[in-house]
């Protein structure tokens, strides 16, 4: 502030240059930026504290039984989260199972095989896919993907693989498997771009050494590149899993939103995120409002914890690889 006053009084630029640097201005500015940087830490603490405080009544009332019972009964105020835990993990796991090989192969193609003129457009397109809002993917899922899966692949699965027991019963297309496909589509870009970073971090000397031994393209990729970057690829998968667990809108729109646990992947279900999203209009409608809301907060707290844990693990794995992490991830 001091220096501003000085420069304001004297006016001419020559005098500003001669004036000593204002200490007060520096202090104020530094304090201001410090406060703003601290906001991030405060925000993280606030999120954790809010969810813990909100879910306290539910925790004291249900204790550990919240995690191993599956009834969700707003009328009698009795809540258990097992259905949603099951739905979340099974849909995310299958989504990851679909997305990981595809993303990895794409990353290998983009770093090891693709000619230069393909590379940049393909990378841009994958980034565009990442930018499409969740709700638009959900709309596309409802109108295009669900009917297609219901009339095409699902009858075939039911006919030929019914003995596996994971495909059973009549299906409307709104089911856990459809949700898994949607999740896979939504985590493809992030796994691809992180895997690409990881593969790019492999030193060229590794590839050259393998080529010098007479290895083919694929042998170089398998022995020198993939083996070198296993940890980082696990990290990419973890980051994808973190996204999959928290994916809300698109999943809500196609999963069928039924509070049931079924062995069949073709029956509807619910995830932690989709359950919370569905309850937004209903929380005030019941007499057990307080405990209902608290149970929802506990679902949110669980969701926060699993995504935080997967994110930390992912960052440890990727960080160890020396791949550059971009801000967008």
């Amino acid at each position, binding site marked *: 502030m001091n*220096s501003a006053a000085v420069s304001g009084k004297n006016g001419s630029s020559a005098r*500003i240059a*001669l004036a000593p*640097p204002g200490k007060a*201005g520096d202090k104020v*500015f*530094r304090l201001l*930026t*410090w406060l*703003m*940087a*601290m*906001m*991030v830490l405060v*925000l993280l603490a*606030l*999120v954790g504290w809010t969810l813990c405080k909100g879910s306290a009544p539910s925790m004291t009332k249900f204790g550990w039984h919240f995690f191993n019972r599956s009834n969700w009964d707003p009328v009698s105020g009795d809540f258990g989260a097992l259905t949603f835990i099951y739905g979340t993990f099974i849909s995310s796991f299958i989504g990851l199972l679909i997305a990981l090989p*595809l*993303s990895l*192969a*794409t990353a290998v*193609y983009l770093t090891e095989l693709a000619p230069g003129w393909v590379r940049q457009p*393909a990378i841009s*397109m*994958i*980034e*565009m*896919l990442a*930018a*499409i*809002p*969740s*709700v*638009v993917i*959900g*709309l596309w899922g*409802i109108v*295009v993907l669900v009917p297609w899966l219901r009339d095409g692949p699902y009858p075939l699965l039911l006919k030929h693989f019914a003995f596996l027991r994971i495909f059973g019963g009549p299906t409307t297309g709104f089911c856990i498997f459809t949700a898994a496909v949607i999740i896979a589509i939504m985590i493809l*870009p992030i796994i691809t771009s992180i895997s690409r970073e990881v593969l790019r971090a492999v030193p060229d000397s590794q590839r050259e050494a393998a080529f010098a031994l007479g290895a083919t393209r*694929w*042998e170089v*990729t398998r022995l020198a590149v993939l083996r070198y970057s296993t940890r980082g690829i696990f990290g990419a998968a973890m*980051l994808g899993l*973190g*996204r999959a667990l*928290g994916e*809300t*809108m698109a999943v809500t*729109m196609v999963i069928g939103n039924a509070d049931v646990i079924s062995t069949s992947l073709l029956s509807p279900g619910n995830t932690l*995120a989709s359950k919370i*999203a569905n309850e*937004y209009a209903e929380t005030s409608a019941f007499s057990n409002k307080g405990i209902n809301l608290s149970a*929802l907060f506990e679902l*949110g707290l669980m*969701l926060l914890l699993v995504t935080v844990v997967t*994110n*930390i693990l992912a960052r440890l794995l990727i960080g160890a690889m020396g791949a550059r992490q*971009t*801000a*967008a991830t």
Partner: protein
Amino acid sequence: MNRWYHHWRKIKSSGVSALCLICAVVVIAPLAFVLFDCLKKGASSLDLAFFTQLPNPPGESGGGMANAILGSLTLLGLAGLIGIPVGVLGGIHLSEFGSPRMNWAVRFAADILNGTPSIVWGIVVYALVVLPITGYSAYAAGLALGFMMIPLIIRTTEEMLVLVPNSYREAAFALGIPHWRIVLNIVLKTAGKGIITGILLAAARVAGETAPLLFTALGNDSWSHNLSQPIEALPHKIFIYATSPYGDWVRQAWAGALVLILFVLALNIGVRLMTRGSAPHLAR
């Protein structure tokens, strides 16, 4: 024998290469499908009424999403009011003043917050603001989106500021300019393009968010004159219409999706064109 094995290895290598190419096509295919369907089903539903009229009651055809579009822009503005100053100033602290230990903590927290599911932001703001203070309101929704912007902007701002050569700062110090003016007038100006890029990308990201709005904005069917009242937003309207049983609503949802996707992609592509060559970190 040996020759055959050699051939087999070559064939296997080509085979895997082809497989990788196919996978790459499969990964890009959903983008093509979604864009194609949005264009096909959305373009035919887009008309002047969509941009100028209020929604009609259920079952009645016609009407538009004018209030949702305006609401989305309002919310983006509110989010920017919170996210941009906090994010940019915080980023300045990380790059210009911060100690290594604090920087690590802030970056770590920002990365965690970036990975937090958007629905969690929704219920947190619901518990913090909606229930005790404002009720469902544009303020609460803007706050939720602003919170989501902070960690995104703080990270990109820092990345951009670090790229500014130290010699610029040293030259300015040698002229006796106060540190805070060096940061604002020289460092920030040099990295300005990159910082704006980060802000626009963060805006594009939150513009399409629906989940945080469920518990904060609630939505309505009329113009929003008062920011302390519920407000409609485009992604939320698309969600309501897409999950409705009315054919005409689903048709309008496609039109909304097309507008939203074009807005988000235009921001993304615009940013990339703007920073081509100058900001390798974000242009990738």
